[in-house]
């Protein structure tokens, strides 16, 4: 990953924070004139620095942010985003260095789970997080993970 690729990566994250959603390829093209950003995005995808959609030219993830709606919604700093998973949901206030609120649901019964993040702590903290895929295989299929 070279400096030019890192600049594109940082631009994507900045726009994700500003927009509350993923920047689209058409927007990146306009915002990065003269930059061959698609080959750079392929490289960033290979390095797991972003995740691209399989079937179209758009972003799927810039972890912890999700480009598609999920059942993990996060409010922080007066804005809101979708997170890829419960881990990433907590990662959004962490990345922004602010308190936040997570609205998720129990994967078993569907009941809403609401958790605040205050000063880096989960309130309440007793709900359970389950990860089914061993760490060595998280990136085999990151969307499933």
């Amino acid at each position: 990953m070279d400096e030019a690729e890192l600049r594109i990566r940082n631009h994507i994250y900045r726009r994700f924070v500003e927009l509350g959603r993923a920047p689209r390829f058409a927007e990146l093209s306009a915002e990065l004139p003269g930059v061959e950003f698609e080959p750079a995005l392929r490289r960033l995808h290979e390095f797991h620095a972003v995740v691209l959609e399989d079937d179209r030219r758009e972003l799927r993830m810039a972890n912890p942010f999700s480009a598609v709606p999920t059942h993990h919604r996060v409010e922080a700093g007066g804005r809101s985003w979708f997170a890829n998973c419960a881990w990433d949901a907590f990662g959004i206030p962490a990345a922004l260095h602010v308190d936040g609120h997570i609205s998720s649901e129990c994967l078993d019964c569907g009941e809403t789970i609401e958790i605040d993040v205050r000063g880096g702590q989960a309130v309440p903290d007793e709900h359970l997080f389950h990860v089914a895929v061993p760490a060595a295989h998280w990136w085999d299929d990151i969307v499933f993970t």
Partner: protein
Amino acid sequence: MNLFRSEEHVERWLGRTGLEAGATITAGRLCELAHAWWSDRLAPSWRPRSREASQAILERLGLTGPFWQLAEE
């Protein structure tokens, strides 16, 4: 990587899906993990973290053993 109301709900979901049990931690511990894992993500100086550094974060939070061993780079 999802949330559940209790261990009973985790076990019921595993039974329904046929998936093998993985690892379960509390939301409190997950929050600690997320802060250690993601806090540098928006820094302009961000650089990819090595496998060893990521593994060290897991170990600091007591997430050890074969299940938590990250893939070789």
